């Protein structure tokens, strides 16, 4: 077979691998979280589509373990290796990128990347995609303001404080608050993206602020769902709740009317698209140089989901056409700012 890779420096995929020789690897934190499990399932679906299997890796939210797995992976056979990676945090991206570059493995990363790390500086790091957290934070913030009638107190549940997602989304909320001067942020606490922690924190915030709380802004759906439980246990049904991720339970809650809004992040698509980009380059169907700079680091399309449009999202379907080599960047909302 013609080996494309073998060391850094060399221009990627001059010749292209035999499709059967491509190794597909998807790595997320764990399989005990529906969103990330669906990501890996999406990767499997893509692999099946091209007659391969995906190697599923999980690192349990442990940064060092993620690095360890990747360096072990890169110590093996890296010819025609394609990796679709969810870095645990921003700081975990550079070493992954450097490692892949040195080993000549095709890499797509999602969600987390330090702002000053440029994809275009690398040959094998093909693309980084994410959702615009500031925008999603703002979108659900606005939806929340609207739901409470434009004025009143809200509380915010932040994600894991040192993740870019948590920070961007909160920044989005602040933008939204600036635009809705009558909405007051009563309190903000972290519940670490966790349903159980959100339950406890919300209960405490509810006793602290009592009836002043009209809305709860959560940086992800898991926390929103925890907050919903807290509201139910406190016998409060007058509080609007918003989240991000569009996990199935949140969509159901929106259908039921207990939750106001969420923003879609399409796990199965994310699991497939990263592999697809790598696969297309590895097999030579797409030349790395041909990827436009604005497609090297980009925001994927996301939708605000409310009761009126929730039906469209209840069973997200990945379209095989999304992964065609000439259609990979169709969901782009533009380059990352």
């Amino acid at each position, binding site marked *: 077979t013609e080996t494309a890779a073998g060391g850094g420096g060399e221009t990627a995929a001059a010749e292209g691998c035999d499709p059967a020789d491509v190794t597909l690897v998807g790595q997320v934190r764990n399989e005990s979280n529906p969103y990330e499990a669906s990501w890996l399932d999406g990767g499997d679906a893509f692999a099946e589509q091209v007659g391969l299997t995906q190697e599923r890796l999980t690192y349990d939210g442990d940064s060092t373990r993620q690095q360890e797995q990747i*360096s072990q992976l890169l110590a*093996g056979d890296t010819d025609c290796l394609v990796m679709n990676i969810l870095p645990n945090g921003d700081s975990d991206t550079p070493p992954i990128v450097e490692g892949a570059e040195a080993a000549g493995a095709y890499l797509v990363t999602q969600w987390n990347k330090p702002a000053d790390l440029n994809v275009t500086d690398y040959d094998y790091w093909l693309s980084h995609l994410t959702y615009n957290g500031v925008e999603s934070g703002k979108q659900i913030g606005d939806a929340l303001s609207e739901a409470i009638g434009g004025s009143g107190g809200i509380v915010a549940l932040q994600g894991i404080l040192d993740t870019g997602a948590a920070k961007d989304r909160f920044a989005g909320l602040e933008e939204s608050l600036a635009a809705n001067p009558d909405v007051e942020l009563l309190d903000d606490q972290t519940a670490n993206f966790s349903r159980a922690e959100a339950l406890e924190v919300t209960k405490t915030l509810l006793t602290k602020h009592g009836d002043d709380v009209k809305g709860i802004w959560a940086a992800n759906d898991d926390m929103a769902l925890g907050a919903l439980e807290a509201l139910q246990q406190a016998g409060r049904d007058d509080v609007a709740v918003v989240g991000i991720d569009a996990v199935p339970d949140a969509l159901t809650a929106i259908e039921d009317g207990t939750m106001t809004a969420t923003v879609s992040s399409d796990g199965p698509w994310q699991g497939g698209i990263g592999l697809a980009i790598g696969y297309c380059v590895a097999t030579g169907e797409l030349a790395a140089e041909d990827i436009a700079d604005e497609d090297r680091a980009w925001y994927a399309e996301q939708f605000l989901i409310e009761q009126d449009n929730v039906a469209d999202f209840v069973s997200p379907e990945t379209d095989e056409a999304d992964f065609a080599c000439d259609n990979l960047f169709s969901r782009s909302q533009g380059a990352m700012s």
Partner: protein
Amino acid sequence: MSTPVLAQPAPDAPVVHRPTVGQRLTSFMPVIALVVLLAALTIADPGFLTLSSLTAAVRTAAPLIVLAAGATVVVLCGGIDLSIAALCSLATVFFALWLPDLGGATTLAIIAATGAIGALQGVVHVLLRIPSFIVTLGGMSIFAAIALVISDAGPIPLADRDSTKWLTLYVAGVLPMAFVVALVLVAVVSLVLKLTPLESWVRATGYSESAARLGGAPVDLVKIGAFTLSGACAGLAAVMLVSRNFSGSPTMADNLLLPAVAAIVVGGTAITGGHGSLWRSLAGALVVTLLRVGLPIVGVPSAYEQILYGAIIVAAVALTLDRSKVLIIK
């Protein structure tokens, strides 16, 4: 109340000075466990046993070895240090923040600073007589908070990667420098312990603190020293992590706590103190690393990986702990 007689006569381990085959075997158990595990992984995936793969594994293991080595001395003294991982994370942030000002001296400054923080915990433990478990548990959350605040809850990229580049080099082309540094650390600390009265003080403190104290051993100093070393090792491990992540981050090493303690125990060091060694922790850290990276790489699915991990560390300890030295297992 005096210690009661042993219910069972001590297992008939030979008391003569020359170690017997059996004894030699027990002290090699950690290495045997390591070899068996490596063999099993190779059988599962013949591609696993390659030079580059082994090189990657030992490079990966280096920070864990360093963390475990420092904490081993605390464990030998009968205490525990739960703060190592959080302190290591904090140190990565310090490193990135101080690098622009201190340049080449940053590494030493970090090790000195974390050593001092470790010493402080030791002093609190010794003076206030608070169990080390609690002092370092408190330390863990305090360091995490400080790291979060001073880093503004985000990674801080290294201003200059050259200062840590040496750690990413290879000795003789195959041995990662970080691993060599870890080996040297283990060797130096072991030798210093062995060649000076320290070892006998450390063990006496771990086996029986009151006897050691009434025997005039400098128990408090030894303990403070152990925590200092543990802190300094957390600093060194931080430099290693920074060298491979090119940034400092407030939670970078947080997940290394349980693996580090596991490395110590898997090596056969008694968690109750007195018996054990840094060499054992070195082997233990390699076992733990192989489990952490090897199982998924050879293709064990995530759920089964956890089950296997649990079963294997328990089995490894069953193999390595020398029960003639540790009579009561708690």
